[in-house]
């Protein structure tokens, strides 16, 4: 648990960060809360010759809730998400989800930017952001660009972000209707055995729209368009939920690990999604 030697940088503006990334390429990584990267470095599973700490970089913090649009700076911590009344009012699913991430000590350090940018299929925020149809802002040598969360993840730890880019913020429209984030885990601090993020809008007693994303059941988060579609136009009764579950099952590809065999994970996925849909529908 002793990391290899590395150079440590603490730049103050984004221009310096991008310059360092350009200079060192693959050998450099930015660090937000460090709660994924530092353990990997201690295990020597990641050897980072140049570590760029983002905590002094201006303009990466802050939660903004304005005219139905929510923006989270990359350095916003899980604790800040839990603590923000404005955010809780505008997007309560974030509050519910963040409370299920790790433990309080980790949540004081862990950031939304690090959580979504790392590309770890175990992280909760990527699936949640896909559910909310969020947009990620990336800054690189060629300036700013925006990428949809639903198109950001290619494989485990492989994302649309270029080595010389930094994810600076996450934004999405304030969700409407009912919500739920349901997560099964072995213990506090664990990644999900299966987790489901659900947003449902109800209109005239039937489902007007539904967005469903699953976590840690494939090598990327899975936004299951067909699972959501299966609920639309229904009264979200048992048959509709069964159809949504079947659609979700076609989209996920769980693999066996210490949390259990794939068949168990599929069962757990069905259970958490059923519970999430019911809770979201009740709240819609």
């Amino acid at each position, binding site marked *: *648990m*002793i990391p*290899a*030697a590395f150079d440590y940088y603490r730049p103050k503006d984004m221009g310096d960060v991008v310059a360092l990334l350009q200079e060192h390429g693959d050998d450099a990584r930015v660090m937000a809360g460090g709660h994924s990267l530092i353990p990997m470095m201690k*295990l*020597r599973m990641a050897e980072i010759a140049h570590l760029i700490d983002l905590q002094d970089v201006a303009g990466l913090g802050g939660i903004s809730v304005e005219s139905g649009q929510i923006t989270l700076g990359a350095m916003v911590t899980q604790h800040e998400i839990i603590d923000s009344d404005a955010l809780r009012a505008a997007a309560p699913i974030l509050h519910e989800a963040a409370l299920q991430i790790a*433990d309080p000590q980790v949540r004081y350090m862990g950031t939304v930017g690090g959580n979504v940018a790392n590309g770890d299929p175990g992280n909760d925020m990527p699936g949640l952001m896909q559910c909310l149809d969020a947009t990620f802002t990336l800054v690189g040598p060629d300036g700013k660009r925006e990428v949809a969360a639903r198109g950001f993840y290619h494989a485990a730890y492989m994302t649309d972000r270029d080595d010389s880019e930094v994810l600076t913020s996450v934004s999405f429209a304030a969700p409407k209707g009912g919500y739920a984030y349901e997560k*099964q885990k*072995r*213990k*506090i*601090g*664990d*990644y999900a*055995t299966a987790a489901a993020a659900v947003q449902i809008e109800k209109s005239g007693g039937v489902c007007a729209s539904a967005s469903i994303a699953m976590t840690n059941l494939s090598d990327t988060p899975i936004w299951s368009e067909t699972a959501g579609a299966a609920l639309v136009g229904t009264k979200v009764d048992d048959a509709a939920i069964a159809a949504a579950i079947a659609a979700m099952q076609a989209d996920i590809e769980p693999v066996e690990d*210490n*949390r*259990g*065999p794939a*068949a*168990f994970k599929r*069962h*757990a996925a069905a*259970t*958490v999604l059923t519970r999430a849909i019911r809770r979201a529908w009740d709240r819609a």
Partner: protein
Amino acid sequence: MNDMTPEREERVAGLKGLGCSRKRVEDARFTQGKGNYVDDLKMPGMLHGDFVRSPYAHARVKSINTEAAMALDGVVAVLTAADLAPLGLHWMPTLAGDKQMVLADGKVLFQGQEVAYVIARDRYIAADAVELVEVEYEELPVLTDPFEALKSDVVLREDLDPAAPGAHGPRKHPNHIFTWEAGDREATEQVLAEADVVAEEMVYYHRTHPCPLETCGCVASMDKVNGKLTLWGTFQAPHAIRTVVSLISGIEEHNIRVISPDIGGGFGNKVGAYAGYVCSVVASIVTGQPVKWVEDRMENLMTTAFARDYWMKGKIAATKEGKITGLWCHTTADHGGFDACADPTKFPAGFMNICTGSYDIPTAYLAVDGVYTNKAPGGVAYRCSFRVTEAAYFIERMIEVLAIELNMDAAELRRINFIRKDQFPYQSALGWEYDSGDYHTAWDKALNAVGYDDLRKEQAERIEAFKRGETRKLLGIGLTHFTEIVGAGPVKNCDILGLGMFDSCEIRIHPTGSAIARLGTISQGQGHATTFAQILASEIGIPADSITVEEGDTDTAPYGLGTYGSRSTPVAGAATAMAGRKIRAKAQMIAAYLLEVHDDDVEFDVDRFVIKGAPERFKTMKEIAFAAYNQAIPGIEPGLEAVSYYDPPNMTYPFGAYICVMEIDVDTGEHQIRQFYALDDCGTRINPMIIEGQVHGGLTEALAIAMGQEIAYDEMGNCKTGTLMDFFLPTAWETPHYTTDHTVTPSPHHPIGAKGVGESPNVGGVPAFSNAVHDAFRAFGLRQSHMPHDHWRIWKIADDLGLHG
């Protein structure tokens, strides 16, 4: 004068002696971060050691190239087996009579085995240098299944003559270590053949790990000027370590000082001797500098002593009415690559022969086969007396299986088979003399406390509701009545490497009436400095707050075998009481002299000696202490000191009744502990608050073991659970509320009647949790399912029983 005398009760309370929930004196420093652990030790010029470890579970070591590592700035030396061989230190003896490689000698037998030891100026350079040591391996076939190992042509221990007997008798196969038997095989087979009912089951107690929060480590410092070696370490048995270091290094024992500073939990993990200690001592001798080695979490989980890993095949015979007539057990014990179990030498399977439990079973037979596999060595008593957890789990599962076979209530089955109060001292069929017990009283108290009959009614209603599709949760009622055997132990049958398992206490009373007591044990969180002072306070009438208790420095403390197996209170606690009584005997003579009466005319009264029949004439212990140092008393030496080495006449047999009420979600496999009731009878209770804390801690470790904690390997022998992400260590979140209770059945042979308690909750807790899981599914046909009962395994039970539709 008389009316100034405090009431007797006040004087008793002022002592904070036996029965007082005295606050722990250790906590002032622990809660302020002022503890002093091995890794806190920093010395001028101190070097740091780190291991190159094998990535393979079984491989030949073809070559080791240390050139690149040696070339790194700051690296002082890299030791391999070739460097240790001339000193005869490339192998070391184990506590179980086997030997173990210190550094890989031609091959490796488990993943993580020590291959080379790097010594560097700082910890970071040492870790970098480890990466630079080039080792060429040739992979060999891996054996992770002990049953397979006993049939395989693959020989793990090529260093052993397959035809020669091992330390515990003949070996049947090159991968076989020993067979150990107890009881009467022929008679038991006869009983089984003639019984109305025989229940048969394989009960597996999986491999796990004690995982103390502080990992193992040491600092070795050889002073080349005076020839003295000082070794600080996380040792549960510092005196035994001193003797072992002397025997294997050739350094005379008076030139070795072993110090156990504050220890952050041991649970058996810190009993044995590890390669890190030997290499650090050698490194300090070679360099003349202090050398520190502290393992990290992965090294701790993957390489230092594991626990359990017992495959227990059982047969239990009974009459139609449920009276048990016989018990048969054959255990296949997976010991890993070397036999490094920490058991008394004559007991290679520990006290597994306590497996008749709390029951009057007239005929029994036990055989244990130890087996080598490609896993880490160990087999320590993880918060239990030697293999007592395995024995308790076995019998408490077999009782449940028999209840299923007989279609009987498991609580009633236990009740009709308990050893009765009037049968104590009770001679068990497997060779133990249970000192005392009152199981029926404890059992009835427990069943009443939880409202057992109502719980069964609720359970029956729940099953019906489940069948009607109204709920997906089942209710399990986990019962356990355990009997422990602790306090090893009588020198006539208990020794470790020839060292008798007595323990000791030395007391000095200071002139002003305060005292210091030193013991051969060492606290790792048990609160010895608090409780031993209480024993002494009641014995000698000096307030516990005026008594310092010191342990762990072999230069100052009397010799003892250390702290594990709940032996400190039964053995060292007894020595403390006995040494106190020697102090009191001398104090009596001094008091009589001061009061100008005959010795027999004074008697002890709480904190003083009074003249019989004239209690207004007395001398307090404070006055007597001063007199011991300032009066020339004819026929009495000055000073007031005593030492006692206590060889217990028997083990002690704490027992308890535990009931766990658990809700189980058949879809997710998640559980929720609705109620946990723990009644412990540990004899005389020294400090009820500390007992309660011990019970909470032990139950939480039991929860961990039963519900998720394991050391698991894949078929290549890779350890799959080497970090706390996968190795379950419960936090406050996962820990349920516990209700504690007690009865008091004092040990008849212990000076104060105490029996030891630290490990009872782990011994009784694991079967209580596990039985609750089994009980939840009993109505659907479950007989046996192996631990740990983590989510997917519980889901699998439900799935196999067709509960997922």
